[in-house]
């Protein structure tokens, strides 16, 4: 790309930024990088630049790059949620493609900054992951690449099983703990009562009553625990310090990614609606306008059979805006909507909702019909068949599939099962069975982390079933 083109692009960024602010968008400052395809695919496959090494990233990179080399798919845009944010532009993009990507990226950055699910997100994550990478490399150096790799295989098998609201129970720093302790009034008249409780418990333990009591557990072991990674890190009887640290790093990175997993449809819809409006506000020539229209329809077009998150989100925002701008008589009377509130409403939605609440609250009967949504399932193990078109059912199914970002909800029920330090996991079954072949293999990974027999309670063919793995063989009853 020539310097002249770069200067033009700089001017375009400035202009797009002004327009975006005029629309009420409020993004972090954003730096754009022009990069070759290899870098684009690298950042795309790691989701953040500079993360630790693992073969699964190499696999993703290889897949993406191959798709690109064969012209099967192309990433136009990668955006990093930090402050300031980063947007990556493919060096082979045309000027119009670049403008659209810049506008789209600003939409994402506005969403990152203002959606409440991102309120606890670490905005210096690039620095954090690079220190992680450094530490992981040291562990590889010390303990061997294979050892670290195998261990990460096990950690990554359960990486999605963290608690999205983990920040609530994050431990306080030592100073904070001290500060709070100091604020606590001491030695009040009744404070010795606390000691009574303690002595009684000590006496009971001394007597060896064997009865376990949740109060006996440390605050770290409050069960059930949804955050499997955290639980392993804190309570696994066998891990050594570097392994616990590796889990902590993966946990921290997943905390960063979870809000993105929770808001995929909203985030893409939001960026799409704003790139469209910003581009329309730019003074494009007729030719440029046609190129843009082509690009745009490529992004937000329905794909037969599949659900395009860009399209679905885009349509829902548009529908919300319309319904709040120009409410029906019924809506005016029932919900006392005044009209002309569309813009405010979609900004409120982008601040307060995630995909699950977004769909539950704003996917309407009319939209389901217009988009021709349906539920399909496999009939007699042979034909994928449409089995439901009633809109509430479709909406509920969509919401159900989004719950827990599409992963089965597992939790630790007991870390001392059989009184033998065995791990007992429970799958909160909600009508969909686990993939058992995968489940057994994943259980082997859990065993690697726990180091003692592991059990998983789930439902197979409508019957409660427990899978076991003891390091040598699988069992089931």
């Amino acid at each position: 790309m020539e310097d002249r083109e770069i200067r033009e692009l700089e001017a375009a960024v400035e202009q797009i930024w002004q327009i975006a602010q005029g629309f009420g968008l409020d993004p972090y400052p954003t730096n754009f990088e022009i990069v070759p395809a290899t870098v684009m695919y690298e950042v795309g496959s790691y989701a953040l630049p500079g993360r630790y090494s693992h073969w699964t990233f190499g696999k993703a990179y290889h897949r993406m790059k191959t798709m690109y080399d064969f012209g099967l798919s192309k990433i136009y845009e990668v955006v990093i949620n930090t402050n300031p944010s980063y947007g990556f532009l493919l060096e082979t993009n045309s000027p119009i493609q670049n403008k659209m990507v810049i506008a789209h990226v600003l939409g994402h950055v506005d969403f990152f900054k203002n959606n409440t699910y991102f309120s606890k997100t670490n905005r210096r994550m690039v620095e954090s992951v690079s220190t992680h990478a450094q530490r992981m490399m040291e562990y590889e150096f010390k303990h061997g690449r294979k050892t670290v790799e195998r261990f990460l295989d096990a950690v990554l098998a359960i990486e999605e099983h963290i608690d999205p609201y983990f920040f609530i129970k994050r431990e306080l720093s030592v100073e904070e703990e001290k500060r709070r302790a100091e604020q606590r009034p001491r030695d009040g008249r009744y404070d010795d009562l606390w000691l009574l409780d303690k002595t009684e418990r000590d006496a009971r333990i001394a007597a060896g009553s064997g009865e376990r009591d949740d109060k006996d557990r440390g605050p770290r072991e409050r069960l059930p625990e949804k955050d499997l990674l955290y639980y392993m890190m804190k309570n696994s009887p066998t891990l050594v310090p570097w392994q616990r640290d590796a889990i902590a790093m993966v946990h921290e990175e997943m905390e960063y990614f979870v809000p993105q997993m929770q808001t995929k449809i909203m985030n893409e819809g939001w960026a799409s609606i704003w790139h469209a409006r910003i581009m329309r506000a730019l003074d494009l020539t007729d030719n440029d306008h046609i190129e843009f229209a082509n690009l745009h329809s490529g992004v937000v077009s329905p794909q037969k059979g599949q659900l395009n998150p860009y399209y679905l989100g885009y349509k829902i925002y548009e529908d919300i805006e319309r319904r709040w701008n120009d409410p029906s008589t019924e809506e005016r009377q029932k919900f006392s909507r005044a009209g002309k509130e569309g813009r405010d409403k979609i900004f409120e939605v982008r601040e307060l909702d995630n995909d699950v609440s977004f769909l539950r609250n704003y996917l309407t009967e009319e939209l389901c019909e217009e988009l021709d949504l349906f539920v399909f399932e496999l009939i007699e193990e042979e034909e994928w068949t449409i089995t439901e078109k009633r809109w509430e059912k479709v909406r509920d199914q969509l919401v159900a599939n989004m719950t827990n970002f599409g992963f089965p909800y597992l939790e630790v029920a007991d870390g001392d099962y059989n009184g033998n330090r065995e791990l007992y996991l429970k799958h909160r079954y909600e009508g969909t069975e686990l993939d058992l072949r995968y489940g057994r293999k994943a259980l082997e990974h859990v065993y690697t982390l726990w180091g003692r027999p592991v059990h998983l309670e789930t439902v197979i063919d409508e019957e409660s079933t427990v899978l076991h793995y003891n390091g040598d063989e699988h069992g089931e009853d």
Partner: protein
Amino acid sequence: MSIQRNDWSLQRKGIIDQERHKDRVKEAIRKNLGSIVSNEAIILSDGKRTVKVPIKALDEYKFRFNYQKSKHVGQGDGKTRVGDVIGRESRGGGSGTGGGQAGQEAGTDYYEAEVNIDEIAALIFEDLQLPYLEEKAKKAVQSRKTQFNEIRRTGVIANLDKRRMILENIRRNAREGNPRFGDIKKEDLRFKTWEEVMRYESNAVVIAMIDVSGSMGEFKKYIARSFYFWMVRFLRTKYDNVDIVFISHHTEAKEVTEEQFFTQGESGGTVVSSAYQLALDIIKQRYRPADWNIYPFHFSDGDNYYSDNEEAVRLADELISTCNLFGYGEIGEEGSSSYRRSSGALLSIFSDRLHNKDRFVGVRIDDKEDVYPALKQFFGRRGLDTPGISTVSVIK
């Protein structure tokens, strides 16, 4: 807000981790050689260099839902109705690729790796060799090989051995009381030089016999074919001077070309002795045992005409006495895991009645995954001075 353009040419993380992934693929291939050896994609590759084979153990296992037992939401073109079929599950329970949408996440059961046939071959052939190879009167020039095996003080600069040069330099500096690297002089230089090595090897001929009678169904023919596919490849890779003679037989035997051998299908009964007789004739005419190492292999389902069994055993004995090793592979019905003790089957007759079993290897194959063990059984390493170690036929 800014636009930047940096130099990313040193950015190699993706490529480095891609190598890690490749290592994992290789490891998985090594573990799965048994199933890869008889994979259709390779046997039917038709000269392609790389093929895709499914490899277990490369998936990233997670707790996930059973895609086939879940309900999904999709989008239509505005005219869909309840009861419409929008995709079909491929049969055989493999990867689900229902018409477009189902394939999206329908976890392909196995990871498909692109493998290079030559690389696979190298792995498979690592431990294989022609057993009991003997020095024969007539020798053929085998190959000329260059070996870098010497270090000199003079030589071509392209062959400079930098590591040794640095060591010499440090050593010299140390002798001069200043142990460090630097100030290289001509006397520090060290060069690698080579030597040309000639390798001589004895002549060998392999006689590949295949039963193409009516009872050799698709599966059985496929097994024999995959075995010979690898055998031919193996011989051509490892030995420059091995002749291969192809014989196919039903009630009559005839010598065929390689192409006919691998493609023809015929029917009729089975007279095994006809093939053995033809092999003996060919040996007599073209391959004097004094000059040649001789390896006949025969694949059949063992369903020989009862009246021919006597003759077959007699000729097999004769073959064994003239040859270095006689290999016989008996292919069972697909999936029949236990050995059929039918008295008519040739393998059991051979193991009961052959006189000279020192140089006889009989293998039974009931499953695709048995091809690789069979290869190892026939061509595995055995000591020259411990003949007769492999007399026992492998019975699963």
